[in-house]
């Protein structure tokens, strides 16, 4: 049981990172971006292609993250910017369409079959008592934690990070104080895309991937984000850990994959009905 708890933390960290990227975009532009997972997955596929053609894994992963950032940026420039006047419902539909478009393009180009991604930090395993920790799991936890805390430091300590914070909390005021809100919006989407790319690659190394798999994973990330009230970056990360642990424990205790989805659904309902403001870290990041 304790083993599964630990195992859950590794994947949970990657869920948390995806949740953080979702919250960043949601806070920054008030778009409930259902394409967030697929933006990352697009970078993941690119990285996979590079690895297949012999590029070193770490380099390929970085290139994939860069493409994910570019995908996020492009989506903001070409699509999201035109949704300003739309109803939230229409905007939601558009992001869903964008995510599905990316996924179906992947399926046409690379097929539906299930793929795996090699560990970006080499392959080794680590035996601790009854527990086997693989390098992919370590990568998921360490990289996700570093990236997520790096983001928080960036937002709180750097001048540009503060202007992002300003623009996301009050657009009018930020514009009056000389923050270039449009640039910040693009930046937030690019940054969100990069984070999603990191999360997608880490998860692909631990689990497997296929077109649309990241949309399914996004549901876990969304639940994590809701545990943090949809506005807290640390809350979303902690939420991801909780989801990862819950998943690992439920799988080990029941052996039925569908039970995890039931638990995720119950957590979501529970949070929304009992604590709509979230449970972890209601404060700002």
């Amino acid at each position, binding site marked *: 049981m304790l083993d599964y708890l630990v195992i859950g933390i590794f994947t949970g960290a990657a869920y948390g990172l995806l949740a953080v990227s979702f919250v960043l975009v949601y806070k920054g532009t008030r778009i*409930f971006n*259902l394409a967030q997972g697929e933006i990352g997955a697009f970078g993941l596929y690119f990285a996979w292609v590079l690895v297949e053609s012999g590029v070193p894994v770490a380099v390929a992963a970085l290139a994939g993250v860069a493409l994910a950032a570019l995908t996020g940026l492009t989506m903001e420039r070409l*699509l999201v910017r*035109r*949704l*300003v*006047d*739309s*109803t*939230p*419902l*229409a*905007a*939601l*539909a*558009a992001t*869903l*369409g*964008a995510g*599905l*478009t990316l*996924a*179906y*393009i992947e399926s*046409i180009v690379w097929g539906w079959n299930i793929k795996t991604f090699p560990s970006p930090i080499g392959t080794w395993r680590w035996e601790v008592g009854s527990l086997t920790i693989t390098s992919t799991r370590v990568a998921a936890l360490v990289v996700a934690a570093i990236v997520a805390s790096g983001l928080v430091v960036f937002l709180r300590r750097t001048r540009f990070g503060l202007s992002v914070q300003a623009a996301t909390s009050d657009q009018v005021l930020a514009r009056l104080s000389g923050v270039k809100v449009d640039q910040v919006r693009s930046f937030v989407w690019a940054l969100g895309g990069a984070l999603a790319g990191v999360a997608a690659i880490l998860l692909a190394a631990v689990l497997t991937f296929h077109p*649309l798999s990241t949309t*399914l994973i996004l*549901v876990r990330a*969304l*639940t994590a984000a*809701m545990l943090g009230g*949809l506005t807290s970056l640390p809350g979303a990360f902690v939420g991801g850990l909780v989801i990862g642990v819950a998943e690992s424990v439920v799988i080990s205790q029941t052996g*039925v*994959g*569908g*039970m*995890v*989805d*039931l638990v*995720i*659904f119950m957590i*979501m*309902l529970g949070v*929304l*009905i009992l604590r*709509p403001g979230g449970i972890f870290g209601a404060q700002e990041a």
Partner: protein
Amino acid sequence: MRKKLETQALIGGARIGPVLLLGILLAVILTFPTLGSYSLYVFALLAIQGIAVLSLNLLMGYAGQVSLGQAAFIGMGAYGTAQFASWGVPFPFTIVFSVVTTVAAATLVGLPSLRIKGLQLAATTLAFGIMAEQLLFARPWSKTATVGMIADRPEAMASDRAFLVVALLGLGLVLLIDSSVRRSRIGRSFFAVRYREDTAAARGVPVGQVKLLAYAMAGLYAGIAGGLFAYLIERVSATPFSVWKSLWFVVVIVVGGIGSWSGALVAAILFTGMTELLRPIAAYSPLIGAVLLMLAPVLRPQGLGWILERPIRSRRARVIEAEVIEREPVDVHELVTHRRPVRFSVPMRTLLSLRDVELTIGGLEILRGVNLEIRRGELVGLIGPNGAGKTTVFNCVSGFLKPTAGEITYRGRDVLALPPHARPDLGIIRTFQQVGICAPLTVWDNVLLGQYAIHPYGVVSALVRTPRVRRDEKDAAKRATAALEAVGLRDLAGERAGSLPHATQRLVEVAGALAAGPEILLLDEPAAGMDPEETRLLGARLAALRKDLDLTMVVIEHHIPMVADLCEFVYVLAEGRVMAEGSPAEVQRDPAVIATYLGEERLSREEVAVGV
């Protein structure tokens, strides 16, 4: 950038249309004995898809509740039917029972909508869809999980032709229900909740109940679709109800135009037809759907419905013209509501009274002990600088905010315990500073919306359109005409409310408020954005209405001459307190008022009030 307006199909619409359509379809099918088994299958599939998309159209398009897990409800209908069949339940009851369970499940999934609004709900439906697919339909507890469940058709509809007739009858039934809903106060309340929850509540719509009803009705349609689908394929497996199917439904609804039943049907037919008939491009149909889903909100938010419903709309506009605009003059006394016997529990003229009302939000004292007495038949002005708490007073009286201390009584009765939607029934009707209209609907439909509480017929009556419903709807039309006449907007009845000038939109809201049968009317800056002539006219109309309808009015207004002309009593609010009260002349002489309010007024007459 060019501003794109989302237009909404008129709530009414043709009842004869769907019946005619289905009649023709039935005739074609029955007279073409050469139709092969595959064609019959495709037609039946289309009919069932039609019911399925109408289910999502009602939930998302009418009531504005996004569902990304609709296929799960249809799957519940199908699995339920197969399950009941396996327990030996005879045919129609298999579907009936499974519809009941599907309705229950859909209502359950809708429960969080009572607590929260918006897009997080979409995430829960997605999670529900995935859970249903992975657990309920995968049935890890069953040995037969991999082969699916058997649902053999009963003798009577064993042939493909007979089954097609049953499927089309099912679609016809759902179309009739849908049309009855749209033409009733139930459908109007769905749209009101979708576009303006606060206005809906202020007109007596119990927002939470209405949302749950929308989920339940979507479950009803989905259950019927699922039950028929089980008998179509006769072996129920999880694949047709995957979460991707749910997202496909969203594609259909958005491409068809969110809220347009005919657009949704045509889009469903186009997509299914594309997949079934044009096999070579079938592989690309998900991609095509996804691209359309991405682009439709940007390029054409109205979807196909925009093209399809234009003829219906122009016909409805003509009907409105004939019945509303060109009919003989109406008497404003149509608006007097007799359902409310005047009972004063205290023998005094005071209608509304606020005593020491305090409100603190997040440590901020917004109201610090407000005392107001509004006597029956009075026209009272409520003035004060921005942020004085005027709108907050309205919010407390109409139930949108709960005072932290103090009491509010109406006709001597404590109203604090009543939710917002129960207060219109007492005769407390308000308007909003941010105009409380449903912009995509017509002026006419907006005014009909106001009357939710006046004709309290239930869902079942609405569905079968009992004589009482017909009578009530006629009465509603009469009252709406009178209300439009009273504010001088009868000529604009057929216009899209959101396309009118701002000042006219305010009048639309006032008309809706009048139609709601007010005893006391709380108007929040009714003259904002009007030119002096329009303001004068509005003042004259309000004064006349007060006399004719025996109304009591409280008006928040920045336009001092209008207040001075119109009101016999004025309260001046500043910093959450009443700083002066009396006749307009008395108040205008008050040195404190001159210092704090009128001084600022001169500076900031045009400033938009940011009142809390």
